[in-house]
Every structure is written in structure tokens, then in C-alpha cells.
């Protein structure tokens, strides 16, 4: 099994050309087999990645689409929402995951037991999870407002009547769903730090916050960066959270780009505008993807 440590350290291996001098040329019949073996994946890639990408680009090539987009106030609002959703969601989640993973490093039986429960949101499929969030916040009948009035006698807000509350609900649900996963990743990263380093730091008097700052953080920094970038990309494309938790309410003011694109394409009925809305994230997406691919290709584990 690839150890979680190796994976966690962002060492996803991509076999690069490899040292060719080792390699004898494949004999004819074997070469035929080798080609036959890669054909299924090559076909999937061409048919379901390359073709849709090319098709999408050709749909959205008309510059006037982008003029339409920019002149739509809905689009401007959505861009701000997306920036907030991604910036808050990803960074708060990653930072919390880093901290909580430290908590789970403690060796206590009840902390181990807690870890088993803590993983549940990740094992739970996303649709049931977000549906539950939606219902919890639905208004006076929702669980949260009922709880507020039962505990403190406060009348809770109608969450989906306010753009910022609705967006906040999206961010919190998103963090809830994905925090356990990244905590596990960082936990694996922390476990990969050799015990002796901690002991040495201990002897030098680096404990608690100082140990975190001078030992753990520098060792995990690269991994933290890779994970944050990866998570950023996936979050920019996140459709499910916003679509199910706030559903864009009130009046499409809490949409993000992924949901707006689908709205344009299927509710308004202008697929090219939908593709254009999604593609307008490319200026952010491509540099991040480029950095990430370089980092992921690095063979060495940084720990």
C-alpha cells in the first residue's frame, strides 16, 4: 500500500520518460499489446475530456458572450460570491484541518474513538449531508432556529433571506463536509515526521506553539501548499454545495460560478453563455493548475 505519508506529502508519482538507456525497445508483439492496453484510457480521455473541452471552447468563442456576461449584474455578484466562497472555504478549512490534526496526534483512547466519529461527514454522501444542512437552516421550523429559541429564547434569522447569511451557510456546510478528509491528510503528514525530531525539539525547549511554528509548520509547509492549491481548484468547480444548501437563494444572490453556468445553460437555455461563465474562471484556474502539476510531478517526498 502506498503509505498515507507518501501520498500525503504530495508525492503522486507520474512516470516521466524514465531513463531511456535502461529500456530495451519492446519487441513487436509486445509493443502491440502495450498499445492495446493504453487504448481504453486514451479513448476515454479523447472522447470525454478532449472532445468536451474543444466543444466547450468552440461554444464560447464568441467575444460578445463575454460582453453580455460582464454587463449582467448577476455575473458580477457571482464572481464576488465565488471569490468569497473559495477564499474563506478553502483557507479556513485547511487551517482548521492543520490544527485539528494536531489534536488527533494525542495518544488517548477517547481521542482515537473520537476520530472514528469525526470521519463521518466525509463518509456520508454529499447529497444527504447538504440536504440536512438546508433543512436545518430553513427558517423557523429549521433545527438551528428551534435550538436558538429553545436555548436562548432568540428568534433566529431566516437564513436564506439574506445573501451573506446564505453564502455563509454554504461556506460552513462546505467546511463541515470536507474538514475530516484534509484533517486525515495532515494527520498522515504529521505522523510521517520522525519521532526523533520532536524529541530533539523537546530537548531544545521547543514545545507547544513553538514546536508548531518551528518544527511542524516548516516540515508540512510544502504539503500544506499543495493541498491548498488542489482544494482551491476543486472548490472553484464545486456545484453541489451551493446548489443544495442555499440553492442561490435569495433571488440568485448567493450563486457561485459553477451553479450560475448551469443556470445559464439549462434554466435560461443559453449553453454558450453558461460555458462562457465557467470559462471566465480560467485566468485563475490555469496558473494554479500549472503550479500544482509541477509540484505534483516532483518525485521526492518533502518530509
Amino acid at each position, binding site marked *: 500500500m502506498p503509505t498515507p505519508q507518501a501520498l500525503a506529502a504530495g508525492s503522486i508519482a507520474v*512516470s516521466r520518460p524514465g531513463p531511456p538507456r535502461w529500456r530495451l525497445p519492446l519487441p513487436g508483439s*509486445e509493443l502491440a499489446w502495450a498499445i492495446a492496453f493504453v487504448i481504453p484510457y486514451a479513448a476515454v480521455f479523447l472522447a470525454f*475530456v478532449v472532445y*468536451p473541452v474543444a466543444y466547450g471552447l468552440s461554444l464560447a468563442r464568441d467575444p460578445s458572450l463575454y460582453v453580455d456576461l460582464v454587463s449582467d449584474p448577476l455575473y458580477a455578484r457571482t464572481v464576488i460570491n465565488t471569490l468569497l466562497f473559495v477564499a474563506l472555504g478553502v483557507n479556513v478549512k485547511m487551517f482548521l484541518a492543520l490544527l485539528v490534526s494536531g489534536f488527533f496526534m494525542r495518544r488517548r483512547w477517547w481521542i482515537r474513538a473520537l476520530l472514528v*466519529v469525526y470521519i463521518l461527514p466525509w*463518509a456520508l454522501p454529499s447529497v444527504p449531508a447538504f440536504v440536512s444542512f438546508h*433543512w436545518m437552516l430553513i427558517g423557523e421550523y429549521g433545527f438551528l432556529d*428551534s435550538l436558538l429559541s429553545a436555548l436562548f429564547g432568540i428568534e433566529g434569522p431566516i437564513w436564506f433571506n439574506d445573501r451573506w447569511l446564505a453564502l455563509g451557510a454554504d461556506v460552513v456546510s462546505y467546511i463541515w463536509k470536507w474538514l475530516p478528509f484534509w484533517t486525515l491528510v495532515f494527520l498522515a503528514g504529521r505522523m510521517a515526521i520522525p519521532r526523533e525530531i520532536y524529541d530533539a525539539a523537546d530537548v531544545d525547549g521547543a514545545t507547544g506553539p513553538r514546536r508548531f511554528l518551528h518544527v511542524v509548520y516548516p516540515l508540512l509547509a510544502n504539503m500544506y501548499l499543495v493541498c491548498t492549491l488542489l482544494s482551491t481548484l476543486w472548490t472553484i468547480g464545486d456545484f453541489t454545495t451551493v446548489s443544495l444548501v442555499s440553492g442561490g437563494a435569495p433571488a440568485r444572490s448567493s450563486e457561485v460560478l459553477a451553479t450560475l*453556468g448551469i443556470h445559464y445553460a439549462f434554466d435560461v437555455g443559453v449553453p454558450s453563455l453558461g460555458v462562457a461563465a465557467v470559462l471566465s474562471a480560467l485566468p485563475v484556474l490555469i496558473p494554479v493548475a500549472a503550479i500544482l502539476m509541477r509540484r505534483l510531478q516532483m518525485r521526492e517526498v518533502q518530509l
Partner: protein
Amino acid sequence: MTAQPMDGGTVRRRPRYRLRRNLKEAAALAVGVLVLIWTLVPLYNMVAVALEKHGNVFSNDIWPKQPSLESFWIVFTQGYWYLADFWHQFGNSLYVGVATVVLTLLIGSLASFSISRMRIRHGWVLSNAALMTYVIPSSFLAIPFYRIMQNYGLTNNLWSVIAAEVTFATPYAIFIFQQYGVSIPRELDEAARIDGASPVQIYWRIYLPLMAPALVAVGTYALLLAWNEYLYQYLLLSSSRNMTVAVALAQFLNSDEAPWNYMMASAIIYAVPPVAIYYICRRRMTAGLTMGGVKG
């Protein structure tokens, strides 16, 4: 907060040290309680609503006054018009999941065998293609993908969804297989080749059995991916008979008279298989899944 075990040695410890230790323990416990509440609130809400009797859904109860399993029974017997196809839809989810697993394992292992074991020339191009697919969010391809499936007349067909899930699951499979494959000595392949084994035999008799742990991890990942995925299923499947449970559940949200207790009951039933599988394969999976269980 918690009492320290007082064996003979600790009695003499300076009180300040003990105080500090207890404070630390108390802080850890407080963090633990917070983490527990944070994790359980939405789950508690699911269970509480599911146990509510029909007609009591719109109440301010924190816990149902008369908890009953009525709504689970309704879901089991499909006793509500919205749930008329529930088990059929469950079967669809399962079908999509199993097909995704089989195809992902097959396509992924064949490709990585060829790339990293047979070292096909230019194999790295495919590796990078996979890496790119892994990094780019799948929702960016959703609209053109839908249009293409429409042109092929494959919308409202489970196989269009399976194609999408396989497309986004194989890249992860290829990484994990390549990485895991490094630990299998290439001399085994060489020896088999000298004994006259064909590439197919090497793949089937040597490569696959030795890759078993990675196959389990990736297979579980693919199943969970298909179970978690919503956007493609929502776009591509429209008729009630062809829907998966994920789509049907989300459709509940938009209906006016939402029978929330039934909805939560079906949500819980839908969530049972992945949670069970996760806890059964936990050891195997944490290793493999740590780096990619999130594509959603």
C-alpha cells in the same frame, strides 16, 4: 476535570506541574467536545427529522415528541408517490457504482501496466493527461459533456453517467497504481517473460494479484465517487425510472409539499452503504484515499 491516575510515583510531583497537566487535559477535552458537537449536529438533525411523524414535521421540536420509525417504513414500502421508484433508483445508484468500479479498475490498471511496467514510449503523455484531468474540476466540463451526450442520444441513460464517473475516477486510479506498482519488483516481469509468458499473462497472473491492495483502495474510491457525485447525474438523468437516489433526493428539495421526514429517512438509507463500506475498508482506504477522495 479528569482525575489523574495516582500511582506511587506521581504523588510526589509538584502541585504546579499537576495543575498544568490537568489544565491541558481539560483543554483537550473541551476541544474534543466541540469537535463532537460540530460533527454530530447535522447528523442529529437528519435522524431527528426522520423520526418525526408525518404532519409533525413543521414543528419546533428539538427531538420529536413521539419518535416513530414510520417514515423508514414508508420508504421501505415505497408508500408515498414521491418514493414510488425508490428501490429502483437505489438499484440505479448501485448499477452506476458497480459499473464505475469495474471499468475504472480495468481501464486504470491496463493503462498503468502499459505505462509503468511495459514502459511504452510516450507513456508519460498519458500520465500527464491523467494528472490534468485530476486537477481540473469536473463541473467545468458538464455543459459540453451534456451537449455531446445529447447529440449521441444518450441523455437519460445510465451509461452516460457511468462514462462521466469513469472519466473522473481513472486519473486517480492511474496515479495510485503507478505509485503502488513501484514497490513490485520488475524482475518478476522479466522472469515471467523469460519463461515465455505473454504480456496478457503477466498482467493477469502477476501484476493484478500483486496489486490487490491498491485495487481495493481504488475500487472503494470509485464507488464512493459515484455515490457522492451529483452534478452529472442531475443533468443527465431526468425520468423517475432512470434517476439515481442522489437526483431524486435533491428533487425533493424543490417540491412544494416537502415530506421532509420521508426525505431524511431515504437520505439515511442512501448513506448507509458508503458509510458501512468506509468503516469496513477503513484501514485499506485511509492509505489510498488520503490524496484524492474529494473530487466532487
